[in-house]
């Protein structure tokens, strides 16, 4: 079998999602029998030119230069897969999209005039066609593995669509929202993490982004009934996937 030629490339991010490839550890060596990392700066000194069979992109697009690089990658790749919250909804960088980036520059940099950034940090899908999105901040390495294995076997990869609540139920977790009155984004957040936060006695903060057909407005109402301060409800939605259009709706209500 011909090895799949894979590229892993980052935009504005923390590197955590591409690290999940290296976190596959021993499985990584086994995977190497079937795929070749032709471009992966975190792991390899040499980069091979495209075309690539699969390109995994991490991070959000936040500078004009990144827009150009992204377009080039799209041209060079059969499949483009966005991995992680940054690449699927703008991620943490997108928090600046509600503010004036010029003001942010002045706050952080002594010479703001040297900084060239776009007004907004956006997911790659804003600029190019993206074939698949794998969620999470970080993306789960099990999901990544499964995705690659399905492609290798010639299957159409399947990804979750339901909510974190369902994973909670499957695990038999005590519901922190119902029983303890803690704010939890689980009802509107995409599954895939194994209901991690409720398993550690805390509410979900939405790092997998909105589930399919997410209804954040309903949860918003429930949170108000719990007497959570409006500003704090807003901050809860305005975290790692706040720029997704579903969550943005609730956030803007409080702007």
């Amino acid at each position, binding site marked *: 079998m011909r090895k799949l030629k894979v590229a892993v490339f*980052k*935009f*504005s*991010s*923390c*590197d*955590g*999602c591409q*690290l999940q490839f*290296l*976190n596959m*550890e*021993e499985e*990584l*060596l086994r995977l*190497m029998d079937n795929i070749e990392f032709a471009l992966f*700066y*975190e*792991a*390899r*000194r*040499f*980069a091979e030119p495209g075309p690539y069979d699969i390109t995994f992109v991490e991070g959000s697009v*936040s*500078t004009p*230069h*990144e827009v*150009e*690089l992204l377009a080039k990658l799209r041209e060079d790749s059969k499949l483009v897969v966005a991995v992680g919250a940054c690449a699927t909804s703008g*991620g*943490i960088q997108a*928090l*600046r999209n509600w*503010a004036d*980036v010029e*003001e*942010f*520059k002045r*706050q*952080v*940099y*002594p010479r703001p005039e*040297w*900084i060239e*950034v776009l007004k907004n940090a956006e997911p790659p899908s804003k600029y190019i066609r993206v074939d698949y999105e794998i969620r999470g*901040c*970080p993306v*789960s390495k099990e999901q990544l593995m499964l995705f690659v294995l399905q492609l290798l076997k010639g299957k159409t990869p399947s990804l979750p669509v339901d909510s974190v609540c369902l994973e909670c139920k499957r695990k038999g977790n005590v519901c922190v929202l119902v029983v303890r009155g803690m704010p939890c984004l689980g009802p509107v957040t995409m599954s895939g*993490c194994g209901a*991690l*936060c409720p*398993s*550690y*006695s*805390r509410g979900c*903060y939405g*790092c997998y982004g909105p589930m399919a057909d997410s209804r954040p407005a309903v949860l918003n109402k429930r949170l108000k009934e719990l007497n959570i301060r409006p500003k704090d409800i807003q*901050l809860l939605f305005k*975290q*790692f996937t706040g720029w997704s259009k579903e969550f943005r709706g609730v956030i803007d209500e409080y702007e």
Partner: protein
Amino acid sequence: MNTNRVIEVDYLARVEGEGSLYLEIENGKVLRVEVGIFEAPRFFEAFLNGRKYYEVPDITARICGICPVAYVMSSSKALEKILQIDVSDEVEQLRKIIYLGEWVESHVLHVLMLHAPDFLGHDSLLSLAKEQPDIVRKGLVLKGWGNQVVRVVGGRSVHPVSCRVGGFHRVIRKEELLPLTRDLRRVEGYAKELLEWVLELPIPDFKRDIEFLSLRNEEEYPVLHGRIVSNKGLNIHEDEFEECLTTEQARYSTSLRYRLKGRGPYVVGPLARYNNNYDLLKPEVREVVESHGYKAPLSNSFQSIIARAAEVYHAVLELEELINNYREPKQPYMEGMLCEGVGAAVTEAPRGLLYHRYTLSEKGYVVNVNIIPPTSQNLASIEQDLLALGDKLVTLDQTRAQWLAEQAVRNYDPCISCATHFLKLNYVSKEHRHTE
């Protein structure tokens, strides 16, 4: 040999984040060095303003996927100072466990996947694995174990979810930790073997007079607390740290870097910790190091890989004790007193001192932040290393010179993602710098 040339690396590989390297050589002398950073700025300090204090550790974790625990810990400790929280000993021990787990995982990643291939002429771990499958497999088991430690305590290894200001969201039970010890004999053996393997690597000859900065306390090899000391007599409290620094902006590389006031560039990280705290390393570790003819101090930056491997072995031995002696805390966390105030804290990230300072409003919202990550502190020294390496670089052909220069940068395990939350975007306008 062409004595006038330029060494240019557009994409520094095997570092975390995006950086570039530019060296100008004229008449057999290195004239200019630029370690550029072209990762986009991410504005963390700006958007942390207005956030609630309890959100800060989760948010700052996202500065870096390689050392999130370090960000969680420095920020939690700084905020706890404002809220007047003294965490229990049990919580402190648990923090040390997850932190040392991150050391193991991050150090083995760097030693094996990012750095060692250089010494042996390989372009990646994957090509190294073909030639030396045994040590690579053992290293990966070791790294996996470190990740497992972080996962058990934190829920996942990148951006753990269990930590919070004041402690942990829930009690981590002893029986959750104990499975980690099941494999310990093997893991310990591998850590020792990795150190022995590293001690046999062909390490380039190189020496420079460096001021090494790290935490130090007299009880233990430092992780979460201590005074800030240097091998040249500095000894200060974390609250004094910012006052001792000058922040500089180099025109050519458009990046901020730090120096010690009146003293100059300095180095943080494993080499600094090792040199300043060698006496506190486990005797088993020192024995291996010394049986290979090394000890402390090490003043060759290429030997940072030795310090890293020594710390891995030390951390595994410490983790064994910490896990065996672990007692569950009565309460997982302490609530603090909401009040206005300023708090600063430093902990030892795998790459070195990580400083956080916050100002909170009366209601617990952040109003001001300063974060000084290790990589930005090391930048000035990385460039000095490259200058000092000049004599060697000019004798090599272009390909080898470029490789050695890159390797010298990788000595520092630079984490550009960390650094760029405030570093300048590379300012590409120099006539000799080509763009894509």
